[in-house]
C-alpha cells in the first residue's frame, strides 16, 4: 500500500487527535489551582501542548512541501500483531505451548516464510521447547501449562 499523503499532515492529525481525546476524557478530572493542582491540571497542559504542536505540523504540511509516508507493507503489520494478540488471548486458557506455537507460525506467515513447512514446524516446536526449558525451568518464570498434557 502506497500512502501519498504528507507524513507531517498525518502526524499533525495524530497529535491533535490524541490531545483532543485526552482533554475530553480528562474533562472530569478536577483542575485545581496553580498552588494546589488537581489531577486534571498537568494532563490538560500537556494535551494542549500536543494539540498546538499538531497544529504547527498541519500548517507546515500545507505551506511547504514535505515527505510522503510512502510504501506501507500491510501484511507484516497485520499478521505479526495478530500473532502477538493471539498469544495474549491463548496464553491463559490454552497454555504457553499453544500460544508460543501460534506466535512463531504467525511470524513466519508475516515474513512470507511459511514455506518450507518443515522448517517452520521444526522452528516453532524447537523454540517452544527451548523457551519452556529456559524460562519455566531455568529462570522459574510462571508460564501456564497447556491443557493437553
Amino acid at each position, binding site marked *: 500500500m502506497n*500512502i501519498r499523503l504528507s*507524513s*507531517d499532515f498525518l*502526524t499533525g492529525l*495524530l*497529535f491533535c487527535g*490524541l490531545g483532543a481525546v*485526552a482533554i475530553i*476524557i*480528562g474533562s472530569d*478530572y*478536577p483542575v485545581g*489551582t*496553580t*498552588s494546589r*493542582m*488537581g*489531577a*486534571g491540571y*498537568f*494532563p490538560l497542559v*500537556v494535551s494542549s501542548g*500536543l494539540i498546538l*504542536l499538531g497544529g*504547527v*505540523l498541519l500548517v*507546515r504540511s500545507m505551506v511547504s512541501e514535505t*515527505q510522503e509516508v510512502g510504501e*506501507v*507493507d500491510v501484511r*507484516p*503489520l497485520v499478521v*505479526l*500483531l495478530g500473532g*502477538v*494478540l493471539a*498469544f*495474549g*488471548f491463548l*496464553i*491463559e486458557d490454552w497454555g504457553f505451548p499453544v*500460544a*508460543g506455537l501460534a*506466535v*512463531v507460525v504467525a*511470524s*513466519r506467515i*508475516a*515474513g512470507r*516464510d511459511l514455506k518450507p513447512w518443515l522448517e517452520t514446524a521444526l*522452528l*516453532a516446536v524447537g523454540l*517452544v521447547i527451548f*523457551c519452556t526449558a529456559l*524460562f519455566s525451568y531455568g*529462570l*522459574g*518464570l*510462571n*508460564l501456564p501449562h497447556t491443557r493437553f498434557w
Partner: protein
Amino acid sequence: MELFNDLLLGFSVALTPMNLAYGFLGVLLGTIIGVLPGLGPVATISILLPVTFALPAPAALIMLAGIYYGAQYGGSTTAILVNLPGESSSVVTAIDGYQMARKGQAGLALATAALCSFIAGTLATIVIAVAAPALAEVALDFGPADYFSLMLFGLVAAVILAHGSIVKAIGMILVGILLGTIGIDANTSVERFTFGIPSFGDGIDFAVIAMGMFGIGETISNLGGSEQGRTFVKEVKNLWPRWADIKRFIKPALRGTALGGCLGLLPGGGPVLASFSTYALEKKLSKTPGEFGKGAIEGVAGPEAANNAAAQTAFIPMLTLGLPSSAVMALMIGALMMQGLSPGPQLMNQRPDLFWGLIASMWLGNLMLVILNLPLVGIWVKLLSVPYRMLYPAIMLFCCIGVYSIHNNALDVVLAAIFGGFGFLAKKLHCEPAPLLLGFILGPMIEETLRRALLISHGDPTVFVTRPISLSFLVLTFLLLIVLVAPMIRVTRQRAFEESTD
C-alpha cells in the same frame, strides 16, 4: 582514600561468583543480540528486562549494564564484518572498519575496536568513580523547582538526538508524558485515563511500551523492507595489532575517550553524537584525511573509544540525579524503580553496595568484552550467517514471554501489540520512538516536582527563576532551544543524520 574503600566495596560486590556470573551472562547475551543486525541495545535491554526482575537489585543492574555494553560492542563487530551497523552508534565504525576488513585487515579492525573500547571503558569508569559522588553531593541541595528545570533541560537536550523533525520529537515527548499520567494520581487518588480497567490503576508498565515499540514495532518495519543480500568478510586473521598499529591508534583512542566522555554526560548526547563528532575531529586532525573512508585505523579507534566512553558516562546523570540521558538509561531507571529503588542522589548513600558494585562491574564487563570478542570472534562470524528468517520468530516469542511474565497478565501482551502497531506507525510518520520513552519515564517526575515546587511557593511561578540552580538550567534550556532553531546548526545536524540513516 575514601574512594579506594568505596571501590573496594564495589569490587567485593561485583566479584561475588553470582554477580560475576550475571555480569558475564549479560555481556554474552548482549553481544549475541548486538551482533545480529536489526536489534540495538534498547531493544535488547527491553526484551531481556523481565528476566532480571527475579534477581536481587545489584545482580539485575550489573546484568543489564552488561547487556548494554555487550550490545554496544556487538554492533561494532557487525559493522566491521558486514558493513551493517547493528545499532546507530556503530554507523561510523562501519565506514572505515568495513573498508579495513575488505583489505584483509578484519582482525586488526576488530582488535582495534576492542582495545580502544577497553581503554575508553577503563578511563570512563575512573571518571564515574570520581565524579559521581561529587555530583550526588551537589544534587542533594536540589529542590523540586531545580529538578523540574533540570528535567526540562534533559528533555530539550534529548530532542537534539532525535532524527528529523524537532516538532515531531517534542510531540512524541508529550505523548510519552501523557501516557505516563495513566493510573491513579498519587496526590489526589483520582483515577486518570484508566478506562475502568483495574490493572491500569498502577499505570502502564514501561517495559510493555519499550518492548512494543522497539521489539515488535521494529520487527514489523524490518519485515516490510526487502531482504538485502549480505556480503560479509569471513576471513579474520592477524588479530593482534603490531606495535606500529598501537602507536597509530592510541592517540585517537584517548581523544575519543575525552570527547565521548563529555558528550555522554549531556542528556541526549550519548554514543551516536560522540562517535560522529570524534570521527569528524580525527579527520580534521589527520595528516592524511584522504585515507578516511578507505580504511583508516584512526577512523575506527576514535569513534569506538568515544561511543564506549559516552555509553559509560551516561550513567553519571542517571545514578546521581535520576535523570536518563538516553533511552537505555530510561530503561535502567525503570529497572531500578521495579526493584523498589528510586534513582537519585540518595541512591549512593542508601545502597552503596549497588552503586559501587555497578561501577566495579563496568570495568570487569569491559575486560570480559575484550576476552569475549578477541579469541571468540570466530563464533560471532558464524552467528552472522544465521538467516533472519530464523531469528525474527524467536525475537517475537521472546517479546511475548517477556511482556507476559512482567505481571503474568495477558492484558499486557495485548497492550504491547497496540504499542507495536503504534511504534510502526510512528516510524512510518518519521517520528522517533526514543523521545516518547524518555517522556514516559520523566513525565511523572516532572509533574510531581512541578506540583511540589508550586505548592511550596504558594503558586508563585517565579520560584523557577529565583533559585540559582533552577535558573541556570532554564538558561541552558533556552540556549539549547536557540541552537536548535538556528538554521546553520539545523543544516549540519540534518547532514549528520542523513549520513547515519543511509
